[in-house]
């Protein structure tokens, strides 16, 4: 597609207190980086989440987004699925395309 390189994008929405575990998995999977968005709002399995709180980073939801080569994503997805069998959170996996693949290798 337009000379872009196919990658896998993995997005997690987890309680802020569980974000360190996900970040550790992303790092261990060999991802070169991630984007974190704290204070995510919405409605889900556990009800409503009002979003960012002025003086509490701990009890809000955090979204973590990472992009990595498909062959490396497989192990991360398997590990995250295992983690979500006992911890709350959701994961979205999509194919994506990047213009600078060396940034994600």
């Amino acid at each position, binding site marked *: 597609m337009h000379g872009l390189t196919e990658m896998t994008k993995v997005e997690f929405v987890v309680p802020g207190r*569980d974000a*360190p*575990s996900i970040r*550790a*998995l992303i790092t*261990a*999977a060999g991802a070169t980086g991630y984007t974190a968005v704290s204070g995510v709002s919405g409605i889900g399995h*556990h*009800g*409503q*989440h*009002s979003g960012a*709180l*002025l*003086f*509490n*980073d*701990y*009890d809000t939801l955090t979204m973590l987004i990472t992009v990595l080569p498909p062959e490396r994503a497989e*192990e*991360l997805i*398997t*590990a*995250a699925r*295992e*983690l979500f*069998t*006992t*911890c709350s959170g959701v994961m979205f996996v999509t194919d994506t395309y990047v213009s600078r693949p060396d940034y994600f290798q």
Partner: protein
Amino acid sequence: MSLLIQAHVAQAAHDVIAVWPIGSFIALNPLAAHESTRFENIHEPGITLTQTLPRYRAQYASGRITRPDLISALHERIGELDGFPVLELGRMAWSAAEILVEEMLRSDSRPPTPRTLSAADPLEQHVTKWVAAFVDPDAQWPIPGRRDGFYSAWHALSVHDPHLSRLARRRIRSLPDQALPALTAALTHLGVADGATVQTLTAELAALPGWTSYLKWRSEHSGDIDLTEYLAVRLALRHALDLPPRPLSPRPGPDGDHPPDPAKELWARAEQISATLSPSPTRAEVAMVARVLILHPPTDHPFTWQAAYESHYRTALVQSITYGTAAPGRPTVQVVMCIDPRSEGVRRHLESHPGLETLGFAGFFGVPVRFTSFQGRGAVDSLPALLRPRHAVTESPTSPQRAHRRSRGLRFLDAAAHALHATENATATPFALAETAGWFYGATTFTRTLAPGLHHTLTRTWRTLIAPPSPSEVTVSDAFSLEERVTLAEAAVTMMGLHQFAPLIVLTGHRSTSINNLYQSALDCGACGGNPGAVNARAAAAIFNDPTVRAALAPRGITIPEDTVFVAALHDTVADTITVLDPHLVPDTHATELAEFIVHARAAADHLVRERATTLPGAHPHQSLARLRARAHDWAEVYPELGLAGNAAMIIGPREMTASANLHRRVFLHSYRTEMDPDGTGLETILTAPMIVAQWINHQYYFSTLNPDVLSAGTKTIHNAIGGIGVLAGHSGDLRRGLPWQSVAVGDTLLHEPVRLSVIVQAPLERIGDIISGNQVLRDLFDNDWITLTARPSPTTPWHRYTRYGWASQPTRTHKKENR
């Protein structure tokens, strides 16, 4: 495979609550991982959730719990009781609740299940030795290879450990030198099946819960060690020492306490109660009683007792709240203090001064900072544990000459201390030191022991002569953009309902002073991350005094008069003195008001010190003020103050609600005015931040009181410190968690009443409900009975109690009683 193991580690560590080091002690709910579970449904091995039945019965006998309290608690807990008909037993009519009360007063008490101590695991000695060596910040000989991480450093060194057999060392050598592959290999060697991995890792983490909790904190903050490495060392050692994996303690489920034949047991209970209520009960009467008793199994009795115990206090507290109105006119001085219960005493005494008004706000004054002082080494995170530091504030001297002199003096003191430390720790020099300076240290030790106040005065004078204080100011404009400063100021004004501004507004943080006290930071400000709140008060005053901030606030509807000056101050919770910070920044126009305030604050402090002496172990109100205050400098004093012992409630509303009541320093007081917060944002912030911190503190005291062996740090007298990390009881073993026993009790007498936090709010019920609905942490805490919520929309409307099914009317008592 490695990532999967890492996921298993995360699963096993999910319920581990990270514990802050004692150098910046943060009170936490030690069972916070279970907050999504109903309080009474938690089954944690070895942990008690309530008091014992004999203790409850003793409180019933003393009047601390009354029959109406029990009936009210039963109705709150058992909805079916409301529709139950009155029962005729003998010649008397009994309500179902009364029958249940009769059983609670009579039923046999089961002795508490003794904590089963497992046999000492030979692994622990090895593990604690290496972990302590790795994390000790003051190690004289840092562990080699530390940069490679805990597991790698251990792997490289343990193959030379003479305490391990040759076979064990050979097995360790054969393992990979990286943590994750080594953990995987060790699990394989130990024969742990894939399906049992999480359970095995959970059991290993539970072996030393104190160390595990600290390492979790450390992995999230400094990152030089994590639980994967810790588990890798543990399981590698198990493999090397030929020890099987640690079995997981069985969790007694709710079914575990049930008798073999519930029907027979119920009938026996019914017969027993019927016989006490009727001389010759018929079979039909026993059956009627059984239908009542089935609603309240014996396993529920302690929780009903606890609810009644808490209801007694809460009902009296609610009834002590008045319909008072704010004093008319503009106050001359407003003092904003931390919500900490200790502030309530100061506020009560300060308010005796006409024209003085007090407010309560979280002790970091809405300004979360990472602070580096002018001459300081390293930074301090002075902010709630709920926040990550984002704003680095420094200190700038306002007098370069005095700053230079102070720096020179501090360098001299530092060099002297360093030289002394080096001399004490070298091989031969300690003998020479003892010969030459021993007489001097002997004299100072003598003075310090027999006259701690004098020793403190002499030391302070000497240090002040060498390094006189230098005026300075904090540099908020570098750390916060104008928009951030305006937002923080607006949030603070909205949250505390500051609807009018006095000419002098004193923002008063707090600190505690004591020596030889490893838990000193537990007495400092919890909202400031276990640090004194001075820098936050100074930063907040600087923000509010900034003309550009005031100009930006005006379009937002907040007009701070030109003649209003904000001043920072610090309340010492041992001496109860209030010290004005940065007096050089106060304009001359306000010097008179400030001087009057200082005089009045001194008188209030004297009254409060005497008031507190009535409950402080070893103190007496007739002792001199100097002697009472010298406790702060007595190195043998284990009760410098009572801290937050007794904390029981949090009231969110205007001060006039509580101004006429003596709350005995048991209540977190957060000022709030509904009319200043039309969209409820301020209330949401209060409920999701200050209230969460108050809840953490409350549960830390609650569980430390009920579980002295497991969730309390035990007696201070046998504590050994590991740097600023934590304490051991004795010379080895696990890090102790929770508060020391002296924070909650004296001997066998409790200083702290174990009650869950009663939150009381004056705000529209619909708004409160919406806020709870939007925040899972609040739903968990209120719906699962970790804390309670009582609210009224306005001073003229009745109180309502929050339940998971909606608002219910709050029980009242006909006779008003004292809150304690």
